[in-house]
């Protein structure tokens, strides 16, 4: 193959790649900009509250304090995994993380005064996405049993605490309760 023909082939591949990536992400940005706040709230997926509560209260008091009694953390990894809904449950957490990133983008775009809150939320949601992603990857690699104890139960505890915190904040602010984190499944 002559150098010019090789160059032409590679350049065509590059142009196709640039067009595909550009169009895909431009459409994604466009779709994101046309979504309203209420629609984003509605897109958050409900979490199985009973399961999350059971896993969380195995490790903490209802007040949020860590349990130090002998019965604390007696659930075995299999039970924790089952109560959280297994891989589907983890995927729901991951999905919610992505929507939280979109919510941050909405706030940043629509209300410049909220830039600091938006950036804070975006960074937290990205970190959350990272942690949940690790748990999902561990499952894909077949090593989930080694990670459930460290990640899954703490994730449930965190979700439980978040839910408690949200309910208090929502009541205090007298706003519509944050449905997905209340858990309606």
């Amino acid at each position: 193959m002559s150098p010019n023909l090789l160059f032409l082939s590679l350049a065509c591949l590059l142009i196709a790649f640039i067009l595909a990536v550009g169009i895909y992400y431009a459409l994604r940005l466009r779709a994101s900009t046309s979504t309203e706040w209420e629609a984003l709230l509605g897109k958050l997926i409900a979490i199985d509250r009973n399961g999350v509560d059971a896993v969380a209260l195995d490790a903490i008091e209802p007040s949020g304090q860590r349990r130090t009694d002998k019965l604390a953390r007696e659930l075995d990894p299999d039970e924790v995994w089952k109560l959280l809904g297994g891989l589907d449950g983890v995927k729901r957490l991951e999905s919610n993380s992505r929507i939280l990133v979109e919510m941050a983008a909405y706030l940043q775009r629509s209300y410049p005064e909220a830039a600091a809150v938006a950036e804070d939320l975006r960074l937290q949601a990205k970190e959350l996405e990272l942690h949940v992603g690790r748990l999902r990857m561990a499952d894909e690699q077949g090593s989930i049993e080694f990670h459930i104890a460290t990640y899954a139960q703490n994730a449930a505890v965190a979700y439980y605490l978040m839910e408690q915190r949200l309910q208090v904040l929502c009541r205090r602010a007298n706003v519509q309760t944050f449905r997905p984190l209340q858990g309606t499944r």
Partner: protein
Amino acid sequence: MHLTSIDLLFWAMSFIEDVVLLSVMVLRGRFRAFPIFTSLVALNIMRTIVLFVIRQHDARAAYFYTFWLLAVVDVGLQFGIVYELGSKIFRPLGEWAPDIKGRLLAWVIVSILSTSLLTLIPRPSSSFWMQGLILKGSFFSAALMSELFVGMIALSAVAGLSWSSHLAKIAIGLTLYSVGTLVLETVNTCLGLGGGGRIYEDLSRLRIAVYLGCVAYWIIALWRNAPPVRKMPDHVRQQASAISQAVKIRVETLRQSGEP
């Protein structure tokens, strides 16, 4: 240095459109937010005037060197615009977003390396070594600009960072122009200056036509006002604050669980 009537028409249209665009940037105060982009428009106006005067004196060598010297400045300013836009998108609070800095740097390095390797491959037909260098340099800058703009679009979408209205309009125009130029420069680099350079001239006219379309788009888009800034409703403010605090707790717990 024969110019056809369509060359003269394009020349006049480029000058008029650039002057109108510069007027819009100044009159609507957009130059404050986009000083490097405004500088590029001003450079294009100056270039048109200078090259026209040189052409009137039929100074071929002066025309050649001035044209390519200003082309280098033009490319430098285009990379400056990439920085100008990137610094607005990826520095939402005045500092580079920590989750983006590394990925952005990696994308820039990969783009430069891959484009450099690709540029080394072709052997464009040309009479002088400088012509080959110009063809390769034009391809390199067009490819790199396209990759950088598309990379910015992709990274901002993944990171959840939004674009302001006018910034998005400038970026869309530049991305379309860069990709259009990349296609034309690919053909130029393959075919070189064979056939008396006629194909090269035709493709140059096509590039100017793409540029004229982009400038017309910018004139309209930048003349219009951005959507008005809304005051954040109390319920959205409260919900955002609640979500932010809740996620903070969850992240902290996950972070602790990952510690040895």
